[in-house]
């Protein structure tokens, strides 16, 4: 068996006295989709943000491809930037750059950060925009788009740096319900194309249909993990069952 593309071991992180991660392990094989689920405060977003160094764990290691970081060795900004360069990220609130056009948002990484030729980056960006169904919006500004369109631009921007892994932080949680589908469809098609994805989500249908593995987190630990058919359909742990039950029947 080949080593997973992304591997995190023993992630520990506190915010003040609050210990939000208590030793989390994640292994993501290349070309697979991993969904992180769990109640709010379970640490799932903190795990995701530790994978690209937006959070700084106190200890644990993260490896993506051939870049590895030992958090307990207090890595400097350059080492963290190298790890971060391995992944792209899609945010809950899209965080598009409001002063740039859609096309410039997508080329921002390749041109401003990677120093690739603008013409080449733009050509690739247009293809990515077509890929997420927004070829005709290249010259619009983010404010002119719907929430679902904004999030699809966010996905194109994350792909533009040619990352090894794409991290999604609750990509549909801030959307109106009728706009969720268009974003999930794009994500599903990316999964089918073989992108390696780690997705923090509350969309259980997406997790069931698209994920290769599901990690259920609670209280800063991975309570249960496995294929969605196991974790989501026949959970072993009581906490997992309670969580799924609450999602199914909020009242």
């Amino acid at each position, binding site marked *: 068996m080949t080593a997973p593309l992304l591997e995190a071991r023993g992630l520990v992180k506190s915010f003040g006295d609050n210990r939000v991660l208590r030793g989390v392990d994640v292994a993501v094989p290349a070309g697979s989709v991993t969904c992180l689920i769990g109640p709010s405060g379970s640490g799932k977003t903190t795990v995701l943000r530790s994978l*690209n160094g*937006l959070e700084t764990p106190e200890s644990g290691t993260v490896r993506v491809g051939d870049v590895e970081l030992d958090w307990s060795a207090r890595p400097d900004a350059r080492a963290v*930037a190298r790890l*971060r*360069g391995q*992944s*792209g*990220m899609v*945010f809950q*609130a899209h*965080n*598009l*750059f*409001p*002063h740039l056009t859609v096309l410039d948002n997508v080329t*921002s*990484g390749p041109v*401003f*950060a*990677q120093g690739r030729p603008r013409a080449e980056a733009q050509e690739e960006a247009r293809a990515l925009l077509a890929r997420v169904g927004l070829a005709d919006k290249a010259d619009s*500004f*983010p*404010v002119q788009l719907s929430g679902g369109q904004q999030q699809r631009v966010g996905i194109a*921007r*994350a792909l*533009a*740096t040619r990352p090894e892994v794409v991290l999604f932080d609750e990509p549909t949680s801030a959307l109106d319900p009728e706009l969720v589908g268009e974003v999930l469809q794009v994500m599903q098609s990316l999964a089918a194309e073989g992108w390696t994805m780690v997705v923090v989500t509350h969309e259980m249908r997406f997790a069931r249909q698209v994920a290769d593995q599901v990690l259920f987190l609670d209280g800063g630990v991975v309570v249960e993990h496995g294929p969605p058919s196991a974790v989501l359909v026949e959970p072993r742990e009581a906490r997992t069952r309670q969580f799924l039950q609450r999602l199914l029947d909020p009242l």
Partner: protein
Amino acid sequence: MSGIDWDLVRSSLWPLGRELLQGTLPLTAVTFALGLALAVLVALMRLSGNRLVSAPAQFYVSVIRGTPLLLQLFIIFFGLPSLGLTLDPWPSAIIGLSLNVGAYASEAVRGAILAVPRGQWEAAMTVGMGRVTTLRRVVLPQAARIAVPSLGNTLISLVKDTSLVSVVLFTELFRQAQIIAGQTFEYFTLYGVAAVYYWVVCLVLSFGQTRLEARLSRHVAA
């Protein structure tokens, strides 16, 4: 007894207008540009986590904002020579006013940088930008929009504050009005004409500020 001497108004229009164009406006433009550059530098220094960097910036802002501009100009022009540093009116005026603009504008710039949402920094970092690139490409362009109303006030204050450099023998609009008034004893007329000139310049700048605000906001407001 005299009121307004309209002939003198007409004959002083050009001598005063010339000093507006040759003194007041160039001095305003130069000191605003220098002051703004200084303001960005000082704002970034104050935002640094390193006390050795942020403390001097904080000290500078505190001293400049805590002492009268008139006194600062006196120190530069009349005080520094006793330390062996003699400056001509132009450099004195430029240094004094730029330092002043830099201190006030740095607070506006600092506030504007802090007002750019944290998610913008994070998004820039996840597409691979470092701190400097993020500032240049993402944060400062957005901070500029936020800072415009406040910087507009600073600019308008600056136009009027240039009249203070008459004390360091810099000839500009107000100094010229003083000179002609001293010769003709028509104080009300001359200072009245000068006041109208200042007012017109500030009106134009206010109008420009409104236009600029609208332009910079066109992609932001929903």
